[in-house]
């Protein structure tokens, strides 16, 4: 069930009503309803893959007890089993065909023809997300951060809670499980914030991302026929499309979580106002970056064992992050490019220059230096997105080449001026709310105007939902 679907608009109020009015007597009832609702939500995509999801949940639940063993060897064995189990699911569904093809190609280079059959199976929705949920749970038990959960329903809700099941935010056992294990009480302010986030998330997805997709997809699909300026504008458009698509999804997920009394991890913090690439990665897909940091970068030695080890680990992290997005060379290159931009900052110890402070915190506008830093970071990120967006490395390189060679009919760019309009809406809104993160909280305006603003956004979303070709969320394919 897509968030931007008519079914979801019916689903949430029904579950909300059942949750707060009929299943609020006990924690078990609340969790039971959430589990059933989550299975229904996931089953709407595919009932077959629901079985895989349940199997994953069940196995990690069992591994949790084994990992908790006092016997270190036994504990480690169960940890390895759990990781192998999750990674093998990812391998079979996501990476097998890629490796099979590459393996075949490599052997063909030396004249050996192998005939490896491909699986050609559909990727289960959200598999990259829920396997990571499961792994974070067993890792935390192994590291002694938490004890295994004895109640299967509670664990199942932690992994399968419907708002975050298919595209995150990737939750941590330590953060979400305690919330699952305590009875939720309705809080007015939390619910209102949830509604605002859902509204803003829908706006970003339906009004901005899907509108941009209509223009940008066409340009990317027929890039050889477009002029240099148009290709640059399309790349900028895609930067905002993917941002609004994924952060829109995250906002809806976090907002829906709030409606049910949960506080989910933040996933985006105005990434396009980052002043360097290190700051960008602290603001983009935060739950994934921090997952890799905690469960890969630090176990590999992090930055405490000297510069060389830190450089090696950084490269690994970025390549793995790229590969996590998809079994294709262009994702690896995308990760590699980001690593190359990050390393100079790491080597010069400037990677933690902008950790918590917000750009132009004291003023209304950034300084000229900050503006230059923001623009150069954005330009780099946009350049890297070309590798992410194109379906192959060759076409990505060809797209970039076209930017530098297709100088005829430069005025064509004016046809696509709407991209600028959509980008400006996002930039202005993000800049206005950058200090607070609670988008759409506009207490300074009179109540009537606020209602009119909210109502206009709602009406706009509904009117566009039907007009747009049904667009799935980009991150559903990962």
């Amino acid at each position, binding site marked *: 069930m897509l968030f931007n679907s*008519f079914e979801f608009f019916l689903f949430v109020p029904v579950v909300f009503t059942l949750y*707060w009015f009929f299943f609020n007597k006990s924690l078990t009832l609340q969790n039971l309803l959430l589990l059933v609702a989550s299975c229904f939500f996931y089953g709407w995509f595919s009932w077959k893959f629901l079985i895989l999801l349940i199997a994953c949940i069940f196995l990690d639940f069992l591994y949790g007890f084994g990992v908790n063993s006092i016997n270190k060897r036994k504990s480690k064995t169960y940890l390895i089993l759990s990781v192998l189990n999750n990674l093998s699911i990812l391998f079979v569904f996501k990476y097998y065909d890629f490796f099979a093809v590459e393996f075949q190609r490599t052997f063909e280079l030396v004249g050996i023809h192998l005939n490896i059959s491909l699986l050609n199976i559909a990727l289960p929705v959200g598999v990259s997300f829920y396997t990571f949920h499961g792994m974070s749970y067993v890792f935390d038990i192994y590291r002694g951060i938490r004890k295994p959960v004895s109640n299967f329903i509670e664990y199942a809700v932690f992994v399968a809670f419907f708002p975050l099941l298919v595209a995150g935010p990737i939750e941590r056992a330590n953060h979400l499980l305690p919330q699952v294990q305590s009875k939720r009480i*309705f809080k*007015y302010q939390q*619910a*209102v914030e949830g*509604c605002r986030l859902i509204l803003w998330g829908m706006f970003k997805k339906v009004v901005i991302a899907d509108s941009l997709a209509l223009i940008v997809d066409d340009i990317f699909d027929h890039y050889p026929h477009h002029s240099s300026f148009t290709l640059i504008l399309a790349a900028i458009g895609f930067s905002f499309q993917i941002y609004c698509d994924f952060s829109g999804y995250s906002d809806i997920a976090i907002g829906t979580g709030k409606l049910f009394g949960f506080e989910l991890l933040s996933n985006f913090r105005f990434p396009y106002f980052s002043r360097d690439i290190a700051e960008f990665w602290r603001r983009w897909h935060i739950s994934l970056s921090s997952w890799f940091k905690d469960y890969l970068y630090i176990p590999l030695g992090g930055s405490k064992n000297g510069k060389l080890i830190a450089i090696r680990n950084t490269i690994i992290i970025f390549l793995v992050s790229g590969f996590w997005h998809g079994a294709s060379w262009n994702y690896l290159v995308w990760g590699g490019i980001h690593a190359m931009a990050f390393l100079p900052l790491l080597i010069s110890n400037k990677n933690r220059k902008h950790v918590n402070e917000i750009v132009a915190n004291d003023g209304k506008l950034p300084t000229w230096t900050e503006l230059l830093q923001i623009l150069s970071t954005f330009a780099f990120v946009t350049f890297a997105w070309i590798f992410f967006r194109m379906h192959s490395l060759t076409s990505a390189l060809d797209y970039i080449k076209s930017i530098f060679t297709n100088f005829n009919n430069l005025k064509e760019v004016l046809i696509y001026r709407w991209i600028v309009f959509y980008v400006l809406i996002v930039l202005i809104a993000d800049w206005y709310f950058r200090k607070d993160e609670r988008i759409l909280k506009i207490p300074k305006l009179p109540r009537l105007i606020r*209602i009119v603003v*909210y*109502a206009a956004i*709602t*009406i706009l979303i*509904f*009117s*566009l*939902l*039907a*007009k747009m070709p049904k667009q799935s969320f980009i991150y559903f394919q990962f």
Partner: protein
Amino acid sequence: MKVFLIKTAQYTALIALFFIVLLIMPYTPRFKKQLLFAKIDKDILLKTTKSPRIIFIGGSNLCFGFNSQIFADSLHLNPVNTAVHFGIGIVFMLDNTLKYVKKGDIIVIAEEYDQYFDDFGYGTLGDNIFIASTVNNPIGFMNLRPIQLYYSAKYVPNLLFTKLQIRDYTDVERDKNNNNNVYLRSAFNKYGDAIGHYNQKNRPFVPRNSFGSKFNYQIMDVLKSFIDSAEKKGAVCYVSFPSLQYKTYLNCIHQINQVDNEFKKYHLKVLGNPKEFTFGDEYMFDNVYHLDKKGVDIRSRNLYLELKKKLAN
């Protein structure tokens, strides 16, 4: 919780009120010129045409592929071609026609094959069914079945917004020289056949490879139920097949045979066979179901001969 619910209800009511106002507003003059508004005229035909009558039910294969005059001249029946658009779905077409069926009517149902697969027959194609149900009554959609409402609901907000397009009030005739002006309410003759395309050149299109994924037996039940009800009123019902591009016929022969077989299994009175109504590209107007004038005459003649045979028995 109480405050939250009250505020949510108020907000929802505000949004709903906006849409209700839009719903009550009439469609724009330009919008009213489109094909689906021919339903108003066809309902009048159903209401006023005197017996003995022959009523044709189907999608655009009938309105863009049929010459009712042949039936008027040869069988001395008064034809009513109710066809408008296949997107409104067979269920809506049958429900709408049943109200007007009289004793002695001969009814011929020739629906596009899509209608029998998946939920297409309930009107899943965009906002067509919602428009068709509201052409002369803004709350006409309340007569739709729940599944039809479900499929059309998501299109409603966008559809209602068309009523706010000022240019549709000030520049009503802007489509006058448009190539698509065959798809207008004004393109029909006195029997309900579309004739606006007769003088136009045929347009290229791509053959189809499938009509859907799964045969829908519920649609067959709806069809059977309509026939039973109409026959109770004293009408005689026949089913037949749509005009179809020959290439598409070859591509989809299994699905077409399935429809044919189901007609037989349900013991319906069938006119002709699917192949009889297939045509080469030279007879096709602009899609796999729409015929040009030459095709229209051949198809109508074939159906007439089939019906004549049945009536003689």
